[in-house]
């Protein structure tokens, strides 16, 4: 056993680690960070409070991005037949161009604007005199060139500051063009405290301008929407494959490989299955209030979670055929998964991981690691709210100055289309059988006692944490990747998966086992020291006579 490995077996003291993480900070920073670093003491029914969704500290190198990134990059970016037009200087559109690995399958003749970046490329005179005219022109030119069914406008920082009224431009152009739905997102980067505000803004506008536009009833017996699945590395395709095999019809995915029409028909589904709670729970709540569609939390990351989620969906529809079919699919898929897990466990058992990503992946991926016999010793989210850590029972959260600025849609039951999919009695009966609606218990309860849960982990803390706790693998995003690797620790991107995937569903689980096995068992990490560095002392025997 190598020295590194032995050292790792020494049990760390979480209190000591926490103290070391904040020791170097100026007092104000240390006080604030202390509230976002939690030593897990979760009990059965009670979780301690963590501070989350608060402002990033200026100068402290954060992992977070901005509201625009959450709105355009995360939520609307994966849609393929909407022209996503960014109103602003060129950079914002450029950086969000094909960088998130959202896969799409438009078929032979389908619309696909994902490989395109559209921008008004605002110049100094637009900032001085206003950019509305240029935006109008850009919309017209996009329409004339592509004739898309829909154009979405995204505001970048200066747009809000100079007061361009993008919503009026959008509605004017919608009317002028006639057959193209145009709407705008006020997702200036300075709003909110992270990407999270952008998710909310995106959800509101999709719900306001697209959902409910198409009442046509789509074929299918068991119709659901999959919310919060972005088809990174083809995750959505694997989930679609499993749904198809089970006989479950997905009306709309929000928003991996999604089309305008999928969103427009979302209200015709009978169940909403929520993957990423943070980015999309708003839509689930609104679909329930306005159209009467209940929602359940699912997770298709990890084979066991996938099986559990499929069973939940089948239980909801309460149909023997579906229940049997789901069991059959699980029985068919699991042997390959179990064989792969058994193989990698020979090497991965007992190894440790750290996960700092998103606001669901740091939780969802724990299942995969536990299937490999690995232990997550520290985790946290980049842009979560308290409910993602502690569970939805903490809702409603007190609004602070930053959250108050993000619009909250007032939604009421649709006069003609509100149709409760289940009666209160049916819902109660299902709940009795263990099917929880609108429930998410958060990350904290699934983590062991004395693990460290850290919100908005920054560059300095990440480095310290890795030095002190020496995990076998660290998972975060591209910005963190190479500083961790320089420390000699394998790093896996869990935003964009580096170049891998899919990691969802059954086939994804197998892919992930192999990938983590490759990373944590590889010999490439053993070359860090040259022979003369390992044995610097020259002895006579080494000297040429």
């Amino acid at each position, binding site marked *: 056993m190598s020295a590194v490995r032995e050292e790792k077996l020494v049990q760390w003291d979480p209190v000591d680690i926490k103290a070391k993480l904040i020791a*170097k*900070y*100026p007092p104000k*920073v240390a006080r604030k960070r202390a509230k976002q670093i939690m030593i897990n003491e979760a009990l059965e029914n009670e979780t301690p409070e963590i501070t989350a969704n608060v*402002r*990033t*500290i*200026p*100068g402290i*190198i954060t*992992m*977070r*991005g*901005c509201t625009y*990134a959450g709105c355009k990059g995360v939520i609307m970016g994966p849609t393929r037949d909407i022209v996503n*037009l960014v109103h602003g*200087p*060129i*950079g*914002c559109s*450029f*950086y*969000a161009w*094909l*960088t998130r690995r959202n896969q799409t399958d*438009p078929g032979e003749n389908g619309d*696909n604007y994902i*490989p*395109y970046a559209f*921008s*008004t*490329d*605002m110049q100094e005179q*637009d*900032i001085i005199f206003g950019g509305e005219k240029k935006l*109008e022109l*850009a*919309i*017209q*030119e996009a329409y004339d*060139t592509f004739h898309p069914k829909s154009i979405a406008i995204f505001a970048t*920082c*200066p747009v809000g*500051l*100079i007061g361009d009224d993008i919503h009026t431009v959008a509605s004017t152009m919608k009317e002028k063009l006639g057959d193209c739905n145009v709407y705008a997102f006020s997702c200036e*980067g*300075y*709003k909110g*405290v992270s990407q999270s505000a952008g998710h909310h803004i995106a959800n509101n506008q999709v719900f306001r301008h697209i959902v409910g536009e198409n009442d046509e009833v789509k074929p299918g017996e068991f119709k659901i929407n999959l919310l919060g699945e972005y088809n990174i590395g083809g995750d959505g395709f694997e989930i679609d494959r499993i749904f198809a095999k089970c006989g479950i019809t997905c009306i709309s995915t929000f928003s991996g490989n999604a089309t305008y029409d999928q969103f427009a028909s979302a209200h015709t589904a009978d169940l909403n299955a929520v993957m990423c709670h943070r980015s999309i729970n708003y839509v689930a709540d609104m679909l329930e209030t306005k159209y009467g569609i209940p929602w359940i939390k699912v997770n298709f990351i990890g084979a066991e979670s996938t099986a559990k989620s499929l069973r939940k969906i089948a239980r909801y529809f309460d149909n023997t055929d579906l229940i049997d079919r789901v069991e059959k699919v699980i029985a068919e898929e699991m042997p390959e998964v179990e064989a792969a897990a058994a193989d990698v466990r020979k090497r991965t058992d007992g190894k440790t991981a750290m996960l700092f990503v998103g606001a669901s992946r740091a939780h969802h991926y724990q299942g995969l690691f536990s299937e490999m016999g690995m232990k997550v010793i520290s985790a946290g989210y980049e842009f979560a709210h308290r409910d993602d850590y502690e569970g939805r029972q903490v809702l409603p959260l007190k609004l602070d*100055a930053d959250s108050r600025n993000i619009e909250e849609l007032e939604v009421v039951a649709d006069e003609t289309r509100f149709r409760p999919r289940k009666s209160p009695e049916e819902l109660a009966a299902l709940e009795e059988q263990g099917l929880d609606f609108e429930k998410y218990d958060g990350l904290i309860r699934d983590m062991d006692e004395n693990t460290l849960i850290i919100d908005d982990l920054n560059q*300095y803390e990440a480095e310290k944490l890795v030095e002190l706790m020496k995990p076998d693998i660290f998972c975060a*995003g*591209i910005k963190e*990747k*190479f*500083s961790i690797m*320089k*420390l*000699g620790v394998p790093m896996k991107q869990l935003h964009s998966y580096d170049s891998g995937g899919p990691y969802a569903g059954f086939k994804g689980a197998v892919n992930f086992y192999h990938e983590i096995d490759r990373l944590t068992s590889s010999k490439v990490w053993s070359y*860090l020291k040259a022979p003369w560095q390992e044995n610097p002392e020259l002895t006579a025997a080494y000297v040429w006579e």
Partner: protein
Amino acid sequence: MLLRHTPKEVTERKGLVINPAKTCQPIGAMYAALGIHGCLPHSHGSQGCCAYHRSTLTRHYKEPISAATSSFTEGASVFGGQSNLLQAINNIFSVYEPTVIAVHTTCLSETIGDDIPQIRKKAIMEGKIPEGSYVIGASTPSYSGSHVTGFSTMVKSMVEFSEKSEKKNGRVNIIPGWVEPSDMEEIKRMAALTGVETIMFPDTSGVLNGPMTGEYKMFPDGGTTVEELKSTGDSIGTLALGEWCSAAAARELDKKCKVPCKVLDMPFGLQATDRFVDALRTIAGVSVSDELAFERGQLVDLITDMHQYFYKKKVAIAGDPDQVISMVEFLISIDMCPVHIITGTPGKKFEKRIAELTEGLDYEVNVKAKGDLFLLHQWIKNEPVDLLICNSYGKYIARDEDVPLMRWGFPILDRQGHQYFPTVGYKGGLRLLETILGLLLDRKDRDDPETSFELVQ
């Protein structure tokens, strides 16, 4: 087809840019600042800017990119970002202990009119900048110029360090422009071969092509030191490589410390490299070494050997002005035909320069500054080419039109090696030729019928 909606017919667009061939100023400022030893770039704006720039630079260089941000909130955007920047300066010096913080602005802080020099003054007055540490600033609004302008502006800000003493230091300043760390290393090697002592700024070699040792250094060993930057005022002259990237700093240094400067093209290809070596020799008063002359001869040798494959081959090229100008000259020098030429960076002088280089050629050349890859693609649809030279975004055009692609420029997101293998100078020229020939012959081998498929080429 990936770019299935791109029509062949070109229509004029006045409001809409599609598939840009440029990005915004701050990322260039960030890259430049990484070329100062012990420097932490700082983005004064929303945290998304910093996240995007760090991500893009990381994807290109495959190295850690550390940079901080003022993390503007809605309040800061209304009341000004002074308190955020002061707080950031304090936190950065306490936690990361850099020698220099290089602040660049964004469209957000420029629109609200934050005054960096004034905020710096306040930071100094409040004792937030430790002894021996520095804060420099560059105004880099995203709504003018491009990433190239931002690079140039940050390099110009570095001139602030320069000091003029009584005594010349006998060295030549070289401002390399936005090239790869490997290119900077190669330029220094060529200067050393010529026997010229140099100060290169910025210098990302050893910063963004660092080794794996098991140790993470937030501030790697490379980069131009503050001492060297101070000494630039005493140099005998400055060679600025690239009008767009480097001239502003060289002229500023001339103005401030009377260090004479010469603005050259970036040394890509035979002739631009010749001019660089010749200028270096003249300014330092030395003769060119035999080694360098030998390397030149090797490049000429390869050109003559390979010429049969290059002759009359059509090329489309998109990239940054300084790079594209030198590359166009190189392509013409080996009898390839650059027929479509685009840069995203605005400025009519680019078109003028290309017109000069392509004057008298017996074929039409399409050229546009402030162009985009959508237009380039349309041009290619109208007049197909044998080779596309572009950053990684060109791969979509290359696949749809079945054209070989040489990845060159910024950003390269899907291949590695550019950090390590230079394309400047005579040695770099060899690599460019090898790459181009490989692409052309791989295509020929793929397309040739079995009857004319040949072993020897």
